[in-house]
């Protein structure tokens, strides 16, 4: 049924992401105290940056999806994930994220450095 995962690049990237698992701790270990809500200043001007911040990072920096930063994921694999989705991850059409923007987002993710709070890549899959 999950025939889309048969693509070789997807399979490679899937193994890389599964090895990382998702970081539940980042999600549950928030600070107590006043809630911080995002405002105008949180809206990026650049389109690729906007997709990266408001879509990718909404799951991949909150412990919901696996960590994708600083993992040297190949841009082609990232693009395949975005277009095909994978298990819980939805697929995104060209009308939602155009090819040019996706190229830039994939580049951004691929070249990113690991955030300081990221769990070690050796952490077992959850």
């Amino acid at each position, binding site marked *: *049924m*999950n*025939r*889309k*995962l048969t693509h070789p690049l997807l399979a490679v990237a899937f193994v890389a992401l599964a090895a990382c698992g*998702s970081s*539940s701790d980042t*999600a*549950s*270990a*928030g*600070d*107590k*105290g*006043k*809630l*911080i*809500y*995002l*405002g*105008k200043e949180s*809206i990026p001007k650049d389109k690729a940056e906007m997709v990266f911040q*408001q*879509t990718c990072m*909404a*799951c991949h920096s*909150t*412990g*919901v*999806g696996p960590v994708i930063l600083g993992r040297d994921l190949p841009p082609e694999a990232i693009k395949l994930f975005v*277009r*095909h*989705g*994978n*298990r*819980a*991850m*939805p*697929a*995104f*059409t*060209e*009308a*939602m994220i155009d090819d040019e923007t996706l190229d830039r987002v994939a580049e951004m993710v691929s070249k990113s450095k690991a955030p300081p709070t990221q769990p070690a890549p050796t952490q077992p899959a*959850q």
Partner: protein
Amino acid sequence: MTDTTQSALPQGVSPAQFEAALGQLRALLGPENVLTSEEDLAPYTKVMMSDADEKHMPGAAVLATSVEQVQGVLKICNQFKTPVWPISTGRNFGYGSAAPGTRGQIVLDLKHMNKIIEVDPVLCTALLEPGVTYQQLWNYLKENDIPLWLSCPAPSAIAGPVGNTLDRGVGYTPYGEHFMMQCGMEVVLANGEVLRTGMGGVEKSNTWQAFKWGYGPYLDGIFTQSNFGVVTKLGIWLMPQPPAYKPFCIQYEDEGDIDTIVEMLRPLKIANIVPNAAVIANVMWEAAAVIPRSKYYDGTGSTPKEVLEEIKQKEGMGAWNVYAALYGTAEQVEVNWNIVKKAVEATGKGKLITEEDTGNREPFRYRAQLMKGDMTLQEFGLYRWRGGGGSMWFAPVSQAKGSETKAQMELAQEILNEYGLDYVAEFIVGMRDMHHIVDVLFDRSDPAETARAHECFGKLLSEFGKRGYAVYRVNTGFMEQTADLYGKVKRDVDQTLKRALDPNGIIAPGKSGIFI
């Protein structure tokens, strides 16, 4: 351009007929807006339900950018009798996503029609095209310093108000019953005519987004969860940002406490003390937002009770966790807070948790965001609970009475456990009802589990149906079975309307069980 349309033709349409239709669509929209290759169609085929992908494989996807183009598409589809499945933002996860109800339909993707036509900060209204996302509207309001709040479903950032409202979706603010807060729509009918509902038909009218009912029969409802037209504009009401906002949680220890909770909440909701579409989430829903099930349980089948007890203790969660909020001036909020505290005290149990207690911790944080219409995707955590990306919302309507919610809970648990699945559930507090939302989660990469989930879902529908309970919305794999629950006369009337408005049956055949 690779042509793979041979593999997904609509029923009764010959390859030549389909090719001819595509040719005309290319001429109308430009070849780049008629997608037929496997690669281009891939994102439209990713579904979460138990049906095989093949059953919902689109024949093509076309992108329109104007009302005239939508009219043109319908004209061509009528000419060649090729069905089209309209989507706005196409994020109907757990209900069929962007894929059509039946194989071979052409997805009419309106994502590129994404103009925020008007936001009136005085009347607190908006007029939107279908492709507008909640995130886009949120950005617009912030960038323009318009102090209005949205009400959005949990996948807020990537879904959109038009599609959500047309499927009669819900959010979590006082405007959470979205169709109730909808005002005026523009619909392209199958014959190409453009209908404006409510006050929209009156020449020079400026009350299209101000008064819902217009004159004579009220028509907006027949264009929701239906296939009678393609909506190209939708008016919605927005909530003025209140001076004070107080989100809170109430935890209850025992599963059976659902009865007490509902009896406590109903009067507060009906009296508008707790004005929002509050939520009563069970421990598994609550836990799924922050941890995978494997943290506590590595086995297969339903999660054992003792594991749930351990999760409650270690993660500090209730068997039921109520999320509600107060809105208004600081004085109003204080008065209402005292009323809420007394109501909880009167139940003799229940632990109140406020922002000061838990602030930025999840899941409190994302619930607080949703109850003020902010953007979050935290609830996607539900899908790592068991893993595998399978999900179908089983969403029966219940009276807002404790005994009724308890009876539904027990029945759902019994059936899900029979199939080794989990009761991951919440009740969303409606005006007089509860939307009982169960996420039937399964590993879609495991054919045996997928088959079990399929059978389980059918049984949930039929067993609930026997007791007079039916869902408010369902995935495209179970629309027929659900339509039957609503009775023959309803089905006949739907069909009569369909035949009158769309005699060739080209718009979304099968939606809500409606065919010509």
